[in-house]
């Protein structure tokens, strides 16, 4: 959407200093590197994936949350058993709003929360026997396709060997049983858990089913978790394009599909942070190339669909894609025209996840809104600065603890035609593994903040006086106390879907409703009568 109005942002150096002044010296020094004043033309290092400082209230979760909650949580034909005391399992009991469609077979264990509910004596004498009994019991009750075990913090300490128990149970029950050593203290955030989940699925699940499924084109969609039904929208596009979407990691997914996911021609990565590992490993072992896609935002969706069609170099496919875009864009435009006059120039801030804080800027841009500050909760430098910095990322003690698998080519299943295709496309200028990160897409002087704390968001709100603030439920009621609309981008505020064209329309309407509702008139934000720092600068027409 051609936007004539160019908005310049104020230099936030002062507010940054202000915020840091409140911290003890060492903390201030550390936090300074996590707050970068952006210049898209310049390479600047964004400190990220480093430990949260104790006592600074973080929105981050733990390794277990990333492994069990994020990656495996949305898969329905597996019994996920939390090995530990009750809380960890209870808190991750279907809290993320991943939707699923069990279809006619109806097999769906997502609504259950299984825990070994460790008691005192298990902590003292070990919990392996209880774990084995719990697995047998789950098998007896459900006869599931697979069972997985997730270790929580105390398990790591008492030294239960979940992997041996898994092996024994696998033998005894004749189904796939595997464990994740995803104790919460590993790594610095849920990110460690994503990596651990990727590894184990890759070694214990991917490649078990070699039957090549029908269709001319086969793909996987990686890093789409079907919050609020996003994946359902995307699945329809693939259907319309006659592309066989073999598996999605892991929205609306099954272990059965993962087992077959090495048979595809292309991997598409949505959330780079949580899932790039498996894309890389599949390429090494099976030769499957991967591309970055983004289906958040109508323009972004169109671009991604075209990119897929280009990969397959198929004219019929290309014209199908154009047809979809043409018809969907018509509706998109109608709604954009309605909401844009009410939203143009409004200011957004967002701190969320490992990719959403980037992707959702697209949607705000489409409405003519400006993102003045953004950041991730658990991302790494490559998610900010792009994959070009991968080699220069220092591996610290916390990352070293997370196993990096050595993957070798599978001589029988490797498909040499895929790397060949990749090479020829590369020559034509097609780009693979091309994640450039969030910062090049953000405006000059926008403030990029990693793992933002309570305190920092409070100060930044007072400074930017945003029209909308996006984060998670933990921030929601803080923000709303300021009289500012707050949109949850983890759980979508129980709304959605927001992916694809239909999703974009939902989002435009939702943001319009949120910003322009009468409720806010009853709450006067403290700065109601103060000039607005961003809008003031926004009047320059080009």
């Amino acid at each position, binding site marked *: 959407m051609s936007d004539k109005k160019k908005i310049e942002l104020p230099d936030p150096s002062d507010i940054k200093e202000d915020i840091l002044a409140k911290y003890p010296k060492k903390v201030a020094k550390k936090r300074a590197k996590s707050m970068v004043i952006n210049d898209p033309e310049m390479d600047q290092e964004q400190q990220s994936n480093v430990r949260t400082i*104790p006592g*600074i209230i973080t929105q981050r979760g733990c390794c277990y949350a990333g492994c069990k909650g994020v990656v495996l949580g949305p898969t329905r034909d597996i019994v996920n058993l939390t090995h530990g005391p009750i809380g960890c399992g209870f808190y991750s009991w279907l809290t993320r709003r991943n939707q699923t469609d069990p279809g006619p077979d109806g097999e769906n264990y997502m609504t259950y929360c299984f825990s070994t509910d460790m008691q005192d004596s298990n902590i003292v004498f070990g919990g392996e026997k209880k774990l084995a009994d719990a697995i047998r019991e789950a098998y007896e009750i459900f006869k599931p396709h697979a069972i997985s075990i997730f270790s929580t913090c105390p398990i790591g*300490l008492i030294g239960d060997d979940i992997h041996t128990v898994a092996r024994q149970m696998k033998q005894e029950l004749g189904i796939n049983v595997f464990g994740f050593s995803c104790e919460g203290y590993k790594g610095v955030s849920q990110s460690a858990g994503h990596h651990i989940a990727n590894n184990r699925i890759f070694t214990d699940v991917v490649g078990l089913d070699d039957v090549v499924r029908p269709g001319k084109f086969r793909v996987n969609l990686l890093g789409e978790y079907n919050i609020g039904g996003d994946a359902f929208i995307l699945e329809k596009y693939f259907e319309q394009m006659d592309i066989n979407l073999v598996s999605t990691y892991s929205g609306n997914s099954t272990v059965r599909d993962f087992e077959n996911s090495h048979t595809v021609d292309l991997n598409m990565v949505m959330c780079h942070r949580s899932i790039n590992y498996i894309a890389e490993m599949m390429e090494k072992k099976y030769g499957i190339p991967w591309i970055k896609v983004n289906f958040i935002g109508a323009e972004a969706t169109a671009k991604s669909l075209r990119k897929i069609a280009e990969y397959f170099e198929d004219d019929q496919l290309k014209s199908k894609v154009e047809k979809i875009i043409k018809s969907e864009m018509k509706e998109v435009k109608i709604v954009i025209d309605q909401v844009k006059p009410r939203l143009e120039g409004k200011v957004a801030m967002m701190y969320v996840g490992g990719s959403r804080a980037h992707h959702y800027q697209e949607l705000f841009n489409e409405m003519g809104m400006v993102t003045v500050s953004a950041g991730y909760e658990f991302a790494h430098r490559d998610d900010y600065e792009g994959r070009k910095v991968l080699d220069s990322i220092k591996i610290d003690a916390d990352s070293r603890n997370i196993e990096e698998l050595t993957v070798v080519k599978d001589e029988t299943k490797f498909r040499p035609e895929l790397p060949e295709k990749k090479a020829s496309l590369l020559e034509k200028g097609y780009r693979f593994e091309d994640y450039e990160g969030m910062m090049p897409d953000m405006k000059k002087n926008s403030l990029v903040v990693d793992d933002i704390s309570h305190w920092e968001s409070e100060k930044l709100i007072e400074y930017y006086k945003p029209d909308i603030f996006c984060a998670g439920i933990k921030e929601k009621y803080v923000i709303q106390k300021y009289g500012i609309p707050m949109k949850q981008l983890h759980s979508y505020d129980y709304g959605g879907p927001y992916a694809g064209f239909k999703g974009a329309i939902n989002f435009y309407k939702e943001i319009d409703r949120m910003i322009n509702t009468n409720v806010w008139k009853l709450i006067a934000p403290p700065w109601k009568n103060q000039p607005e720092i961003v809008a003031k600068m926004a009047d320059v027409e080009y």
Partner: protein
Amino acid sequence: MNTTVSNQRTKTYAATRNACKICAPLGASVVFKGVRNCVPLIHGSQGCSTYIRRYMISHYKEPMDIASTNFTEEAAIFGGERNFDTAVRNIIEQYNPESIAVASTCLSETIGDDMEKIIRQFKARHAGESLPDIFFASTPSYKGTHMDGFHAATLSLVKHFASSGEPTNKINVFPGFVSPQDIRNLKTILQDFGLEATFITDYDETMDNPSWYTYKNLPEGGTSIAQLQSAGSAMASVELGKTLAKQQEETAGTYLNHQFGIPKISLGLPIGIHESDAFFKALESLSGKESPAKYIAERGRLVDAYVDGHKYNFGKKAVVYGEEDLVIGLVSFLEEIGLDVVLCVSGGKSGQMKRILKEDIQIKSHTEILDDTDFEEMAERCREIRPDILIGNSKGYYISRELNIPLVRVGFPIHDRMGAQRVQHLAYIGTQSLFDKITNALIEKKQNESPVGYKYM
């Protein structure tokens, strides 16, 4: 006394499937949030604190500043003292709180971090600085549920703060895990009796804040340190919860009794006429005053409603679940209105619930009682019993959905309805509200299913 076969479980399970309990530091956090200008600090990996905040937020819909000592792998091996030091200093810097309340986690307990010592050493290292009060409750979840954490936190507070002094006419009230609105209601009642009360703790305002004009990083309200100190010189303590009364271990009330000779009055949660009467009677004798006319009227209206609604409630089969003391309170009320409580469920395992329900409440012989259990066991029993209504928290929704029966939401957590903070359970006024909800849920179901669509039901 009744002994029934139906209370003999046919099968025990190794795993907990859909737990009907939450973890201990969550209970402690609720208590600590009721202390004025206090920041709770959960000692362990950050996941526990994040999850607990997340859970409390989805229920209370309020900011929930609860810090963590953010254990890393090293801390998990070598202990969390260094992390503790950093955390406390950062909390002081950002919040300047009057107190910091520490709760342990399974992890720190498994490592064996000696918190008393860690706190002592922290104070020694920072001698001469003006520090907030720092106190600690041990809350390993492998030893108990959120209710055990709740009571451990309450006890830790009085142990840390209560001191002897000139006897006062104040009353200590230990309300248990109820809603902010319940506490608000109880406060009014005590005021109307002319009693000065210290709620331990008072999370009425702190967990149900109005919209603010300027943001406060610590909410207003809560029990002050001065009030907590004066708990040691009060006239009496009122401790609500029948299992608590029978508990072997020390409670806040028994501690104050032993330490300072403060009489302890143990009552059930005042739900229903019988238990509310007991509560008001206790207040009458504490204050030396008759119950104010306002409450006589409330009681009268409640009895009147019982009579009017009887035809809808009588004989309807109800399943009640949640914290043990809440279940006991609810059952006592439901029996009064003619509902047939067929199953009582709790994840708690004080071991007292069965006995109290049978001996004190004199529940019917066919009522099944399952403690130390989970939702799946409850679901299995429900499929057989076919109740007409469920009464409990949001986590039982899936069972009500499967059975196509109403669920009246009480207790914690309630994250699929508005107003969890304002659900009223206690005293005549709270019972009235529960009564209306339950009866209306039954009427609504009947009306929805009537083939004609009558407007008189």
